[in-house]
């Protein structure tokens, strides 16, 4: 469940379970074994876990042993609830440990996201791994190192200050004696408490962090050896398929399972509106599914052509029961006085479409039951959240559920929920053997969730010299991330309005920052145009000294903004933003053909997030965010009608490809004096406004909707 302080647009965390299984009584007792002990996991309890007030609390375990173990041979195992979905924290966390423990990276293995083996973690999202988990594991490793130093000093009968730690060994230079860390630890539990202020190296002293260490286990990925969740195979495993409703919010009116039940080796599960099959091969499961005759009834539902009207006319005024400050408002100064004092006022509405994450690996899960224990291998950014989901739905104590999270084929915020895990578990129970469920691309498009659509109304005003005097900003539905303005303006009214919404929606890379930064940076550009001021100058006019100003200067310098030539059919634009400790400034140059085709020629993106932990992989995140952002900026949009997605496939939903990617110049701004922040999200927010503003610069056409040019530049009337 969404917790206090969490962004309101994480709608997926606050949903009721998709299925309420009746769970045949005999099955229930067979699964639980004798001496039934059912622990009911209440929604409140699940919520408490997310907020940190549950049994585990939000304090990380204090003992080194919960996080790190060294065996007799010196192999280091680190346990973390964070998971790897392509952001390469497996590598950066390894670097953090190696920095403090002074062992080679080859000696360290991370166990990530196995709920039986790692401490509780709320989930891998929110750009939190680097600032929170990385800094914590540094302290854990430092605590381990000093503990081992103490043990070595005893063993060697010397003072600990005469010992050095390097390359996995502790040495006494004077006598030439040394011990391997494994010899000292000898596989024992390290019961040292990690201090909040455990001394760790400053970034300026780093020799492992801060380097471009290559992707740990990279060889397994380039050889096809890595087992993704959809590759996991268990003995006697069947393949599962789920009958999908004909539309959203549909109920099963009638069903004929006789043909499916007649097939040899096919298990059919029918529990309420859940209908699924399991069979020895994928072919057989698909054939069984196809044999099912089902009728669904669903209510009339909105379509995308009326989406933005729908959002405007379905504002939810009352706070939701159980919600936590869902409405985000910030008011300062006196707005109307600010408007009166202005030379120009811009008033505009911006519209942002629904888009889908499209993780290249769709949802996948392999579930198996062993008496009353459920084990599920699945790709998710919240293994403990999925564990809670499974425990609730199957009415098990959480200790009876194990979720294992193999490094997964991406998520981008779209894999916070455990649908495939629940489906596989239900089918495995019915079949009495392990079942693997892998969603098709159409299923991943349709039955997961979308980045919320939104309407944003902006009214902004400035004096003749560009100084902002009033800023009024209303976001409907998409969310409150980056809703505040980083520009200095005394008179502000910033509001997020919850609305009813037609599609299942939730977290996305950058959340609502992708929408809010687009609206804000376009509005600022509109003010600049109204005043005849350069877009860089108006931003500098309203930004104090600080990190955002620094990246803006770095990007525009590298881009050559000041001296840029004005070429017919070409234009340049700027978009900047800050979220979650990351600061981004993007400059883009576009070319617009006489036929209205828009091409991004080049982009420069400057990014700063404190001390850089891995420059090469930081570049990958910055470029990756920009490239993914090109899709949402230019052409991605979910089309829907009456509870159906109209374009749930790659042949109908355009994503960025090789030819869509411009020359990208990435400027890393390193601030070793500042704590490291995350880079998974903020790099996505600058490209859409930069390109929109560039299109205006090139053509004089102001575009206020994302996607900007799904069919090329609109023809002028």
């Amino acid at each position, binding site marked *: 469940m969404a917790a206090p302080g969490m962004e309101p647009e994480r709608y997926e965390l606050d949903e009721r379970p998709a299925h309420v299984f009746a769970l045949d009584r005999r099955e229930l007792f067979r699964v639980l074994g004798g001496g039934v002990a059912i622990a009911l996991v209440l929604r409140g309890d699940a919520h408490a876990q997310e907020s940190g007030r549950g049994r585990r609390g939000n304090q990380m375990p204090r003992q080194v042993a919960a996080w790190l173990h060294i065996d007799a041979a010196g192999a280091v195992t680190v346990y973390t609830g964070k998971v790897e979905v*392509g952001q390469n924290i497996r590598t950066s966390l390894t670097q953090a440990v190696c920095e403090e423990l002074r062992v080679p990276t080859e000696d360290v293995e991370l166990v990530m996201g196995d709920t039986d083996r790692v401490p509780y973690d709320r989930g891998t999202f929110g750009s939190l791994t680097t600032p929170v988990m990385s800094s914590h594991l540094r302290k854990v490793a430092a605590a381990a190192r000093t503990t081992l130093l103490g043990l070595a000093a005893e063993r060697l009968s010397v003072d600990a200050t005469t010992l050095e730690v390097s390359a996995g060994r502790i040495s006494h230079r004077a006598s030439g004696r040394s011990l391997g860390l494994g010899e000292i630890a000898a596989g024992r539990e390290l019961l040292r408490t990690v201090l909040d202020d455990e001394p760790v190296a400053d970034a300026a002293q780093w020799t492992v962090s801060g380097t471009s260490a290559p*992707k740990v286990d990279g060889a397994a*990925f*380039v050889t096809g050896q890595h087992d993704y969740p959809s590759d996991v195979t268990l003995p006697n495993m069947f393949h599962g398929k789920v009958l999908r409703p004909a539309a959203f919010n549909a109920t099963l009116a009638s069903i004929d399972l006789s043909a499916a039940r007649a097939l040899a080796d096919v298990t059919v599960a029918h529990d309420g509106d859940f209908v699924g099959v399991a069979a020895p091969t994928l*072919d057989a499961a698909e054939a069984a599914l196809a044999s099912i005759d089902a009728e669904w009834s669903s209510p009339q539902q909105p379509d995308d052509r009326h989406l933005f009207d729908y959002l405007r006319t379905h504002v939810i005024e009352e706070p939701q029961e159980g919600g936590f400050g869902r409405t985000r408002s910030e008011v300062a100064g006196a707005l109307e006085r600010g408007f009166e004092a202005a030379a120009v006022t811009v008033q505009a509405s911006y519209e942002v479409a629904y888009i889908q994450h499209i993780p290249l690996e769709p949802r996948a899960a392999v579930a198996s039951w062993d008496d009353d224990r459920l084990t599920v291998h699945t790709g998710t950014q919240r293994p403990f959240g999925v564990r809670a989901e499974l425990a609730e739905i199957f009415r098990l104590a959480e200790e009876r559920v194990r979720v294992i999270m193999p490094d997964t*084929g991406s998520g981008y915020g779209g894999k916070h929920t455990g649908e495939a895990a629940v489906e596989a578990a239900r089918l495995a129970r019915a079949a009495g053997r392990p079942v693997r469920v892998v969603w098709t691309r159409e299923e991943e498009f349709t039955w997961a969730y979308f980045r919320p659509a939104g309407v944003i109304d902006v009214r902004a005003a400035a004096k003749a010299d560009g100084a902002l005097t009033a800023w009024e900003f209303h976001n409907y539905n998409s969310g409150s991330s980056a809703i505040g303005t980083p520009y200095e303006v005394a008179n502000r009214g910033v509001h997020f309005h919850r609305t009813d919404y037609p599609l299942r929606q939730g977290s996305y890379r950058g959340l609502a920052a992708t929408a809010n930064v687009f609206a804000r940076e376009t509005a600022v550009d509109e003010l600049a145009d109204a005043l005849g001021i350069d877009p860089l100058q108006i931003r500098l006019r309203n930004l104090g000294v600080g990190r955002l100003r620094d990246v803006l200067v770095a990007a525009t310098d590298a881009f050559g903004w000041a001296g840029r030539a004005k070429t017919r059919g070409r234009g340049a634009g700027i978009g900047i933003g800050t979220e979650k400790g990351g600061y981004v400034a993007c400059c883009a140059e576009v070319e617009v053909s006489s036929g209205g085709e828009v091409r991004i020629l080049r982009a420069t993106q400057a990014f700063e997030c404190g001390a850089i932990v891995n420059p090469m992989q930081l570049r990958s995140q910055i*470029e*990756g965010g920009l490239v993914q952002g090109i899709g949402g900026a230019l052409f991605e949009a979910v089309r829907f009608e009456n509870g159906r997605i109209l374009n749930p496939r790659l042949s109908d939903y355009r994503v960025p*490809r090789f030819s869509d990617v411009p020359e990208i110049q990435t400027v890393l701004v390193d601030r070793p004096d500042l704590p490291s922040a995350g880079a998974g999200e903020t790099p996505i927010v600058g490209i859409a406004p930069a390109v929109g503003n560039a299109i205006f610069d090139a053509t004089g056409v102001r575009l206020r909707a994302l996607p900007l040019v799904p069919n090329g530049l609109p023809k002028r009337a």
Partner: protein
Amino acid sequence: MKSDARSTADGSNGAIEPAATIRRVAEINVNGADVAVEIDSRKPLLWVLRDDLGLTGSHYGCGEGQCGACTVLVDGTPRRSCITSVGDVAGRVVTTIEGLAPNGRLHPLQQAFLREDALQCGYCTSGMIMSGAALLRRNPSPSRGEIVRRMEGIVCRCGVYNRIVAAIQSVAETPPEDDQ
């Protein structure tokens, strides 16, 4: 809004024209070995590789030949195995990612991907490497423009495209002046 479903220059977006109708396939050649199978000839090669032969290095991304995660080589040419029936590869040589470095030594392109950090989640990587390897065999010094045209059919949602091009270029012989 319809995206343009691109067809790459080497035709790797589509299935091969079927030869004579084959009902059941008894043997295919995968990674240098003749493998006995017993499969309906219409079954997509991707599922034969993954489920019948346990070669899970080729991946499912879309099932309609639009993302390239399933790319394997058939007689050295990249094909989307999700829309290529196993009947159409009978009598031909199939190479998967598992067969690229048979002696455990990484192929130069695999090494280049690691060196250039040309992967994040890695799910598209098999398809990218197989297509890249075929491209280089066909043209040892491709321009950036040619790389983009030939690889266009493969999606990298993590957005690693420019580094994939860099990786391919790093193992190419000196490329000609860019023809972009």
